[in-house]
């Protein structure tokens, strides 16, 4: 295993970690942006 293996593993782990954190964050907030701003209002709802 060379130094680049470690760097790539850390990069992939960081990306997956950030992705999971993003999913969890959205879940915790209850309603993330569903992209359907025409009828959702979820984001405004969160700010209340």
């Amino acid at each position, binding site marked *: *295993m*060379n130094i*680049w*293996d470690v760097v*790539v*593993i850390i990069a*992939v782990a960081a*990306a*997956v970690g950030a*992705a*999971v954190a*993003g*999913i969890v964050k*959205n879940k915790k907030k209850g309603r993330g*942006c*569903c*992209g*359907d*701003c*025409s*009828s*959702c*209002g979820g984001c*405004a*709802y969160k*700010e*209340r």
Partner: protein
Amino acid sequence: MTLNELKLGQPAMIKKVGGEGRLRQHFLDMGVIPNAEVTLVKYAPMGDPIELLIHGYKLTLRLSEAEKIEVEPLESKKSVKTAPSKSKNSKKSKSHHPGLGEEGRFHPKGSGDPLPEGTKLTFALVGNQNSGKTTLFNQLTGANQHVGNFPGVTVDRKDGAIKGHPETLVTDLPGIYSMSPYSSEEIVSRNFVLNEKPKAIINIVDATNIERNLYLTMQLLEMDVPMVVALNMMDEVTANAGTVDVNELEALLGVPVVPISAAKNQGIDELVRHAVHIAHYQEKPLRQDFCCETDHGGAVHRCLHGIAHLIQDHALKADIPLRFAASKVIENDTLVLAQLMLEQNEKEMIEHIVLQMEKERGLDRSAAIADMRFAFIDKVCSQTVTKPKQSRESIRSEKIDRILTGKWTAIPAFIIIMAAVFFLTFNVIGGTLQGWLETGIDALTGLADTALTNAGVNEVIHGLVIDGIFAGVGSVLSFLPIIVTLFFFLSLLEDSGYIARVAFFMDKLLRRIGLSGRSIVPLLIGFGCTVPAVMSTRTLPSERDRKMTILLTPFMSCTAKLPIYAFFVDAFFPRYKALIMIGLYLFGILTGIIVAFLFKGTMFKGEAVPFVMELPNYRLPGARNVAQLLWEKAKDFLTKAFTVILVATVVIWFLQSLDPHFNFTEVQEESILAMISRLFVPVMKPLGLGDWRICTSLISGFMAKESVVSTLEILFGEGVETMMSSAAAASLLVFSLLYTPCVAAIASIRRELGSKWAAGLVVWQCAVAWVAASVVHLIGVLVGGI
């Protein structure tokens, strides 16, 4: 005669409004009241529904609903009641400005009874559908909520503070026509005003359609909550040589009236000043009593005031504004009656009073109240409004509608428009941009590949990055231009007002399968992507229609399935390419129709909701609004690609690369994924799809349909034609068309209907696909021996 028997262009006077319950109340609230003049403007291309002109705006009704309305034809040039307007010859004396809602005029500066410092000033933004509430909300709060030109775009409440006033909170409520709850979003609005007791109401009134809008205003005044009227679209009125005497209107209504143009950001500062002032000082409407003492001997007046005295203690106890409670009691509003908890004796007394009023007035209870309100509105408008005969926007809309909703041109125009949208999306704009993006992603993948190779990175890690993450996320990312382009066109169609017309002329067809015209929007979007299609069902007014539409949307073949069709048709049926592609789309629609009939006869018995809808004028979509929507869609898609899809890609890669003992394996048959897929082989065998690799590709399609083909290519290599029969290929095509939607679509269905419905839908779609595919396979084997 009844309204459905009226000739085109012939004016008539409404004599009696039939029907019952909420629908009838809705008719009355929309201005379909006895003695109102109505003109039949147009039949939808299939003869049903019809478009009417009433109180200066266009309303659609089905023939079955029009049958319930009795009319008396009028001679064309002798219509009794034209749009109320000030006489052209009337002397224009400068009206006195009452100065309501202004410090130093309504009460001396510094006096009054202000709310304690630090009190949150809550506002309800209330108005008719499509009157510009969300545009005003965005102007007031600086928010970026999407605005549409389709009645009912806002289906949920939204909150925000007024810019520069952190002590305020404005709630944008769904558009309503009256305080009689007809649809679920109307209940949301009414409950908010009644139960959450905002400190003030900002009532947005469409000045181009002031008569119908003031109907709601009058009911809001009855709520006895401080209120300011925002007279929106005044720029359109003045541009068409119309005027509104704002001072006089303010004096007659007893609340501040501020002319504004929400779209052009005109008059907003003045509106904010008035709104904050009346909320802070709790300046309630000066007038709540609109009934006339002399009209028909004061029948309605005496009835209203009599009942108001009778229920005063109950209204106080139930914390319902008295005047509002009295008129709702007369209208037999069950929700208000339940809250008042009247005794039997009181109920009987009220019934006697109402019966006497009906006898004296010659109208039933609901019609009498609606008539009283419209009579007051007529009086107000005749004193304050100078309406142009027809606005430029209306003339332009009529011209466009001659083609887009014309008897012989509507359907061909619709087909041409939709074909152009899909052609431009998938071939010209979206397709080209997708090609460029794919080239970019490929170049980036190549660079990363070379860099990892040169760095001597371990092969397993190299495979994870290139074959897993780059291939997986990259293939999904490449669809970004298609999705954004499709939404660009759909947004143009919606914002211009065309989608409302499509709902109008498709209503008859959709009603046969148990849906209403409004369901056409989600179904059309379903050909692009099921996710936004499911979300767009929120604009449907009934829960039944919403559920049914969501369950039918997956039958509309989404674009992600196109690569599967292209792959198999090229390999097995190259001579019939176009025929089979079109056939698959039609087969999906046909299956959807059969399922709709099945639903209509079982789970969703009954009829679709009445199609009582306002047709808005065509408007040029705002560039900012469209750009903002596209940005939201792109941002959402990118977020999804780098969260859910990234994680899913990594998980699938590991399942493909590890054997059951968690050792990395080069032999795919030994992978965990293959092991899982083999469980499905016995089920898929009758379809001619008893190969674990096919099962694997179909499972990967659950994550994203695009990955079916890439998985097959990896697992089969080049020789898929030699590994399966044509009958099996046909069966696979049908199965791919109908089986479970991807995980993103299921997630959106879960969000709308809950976990049980989402899980049920997965099983149901797979079952339908299995039956259809096995039939196709059987026919293929028996008939063609293919």
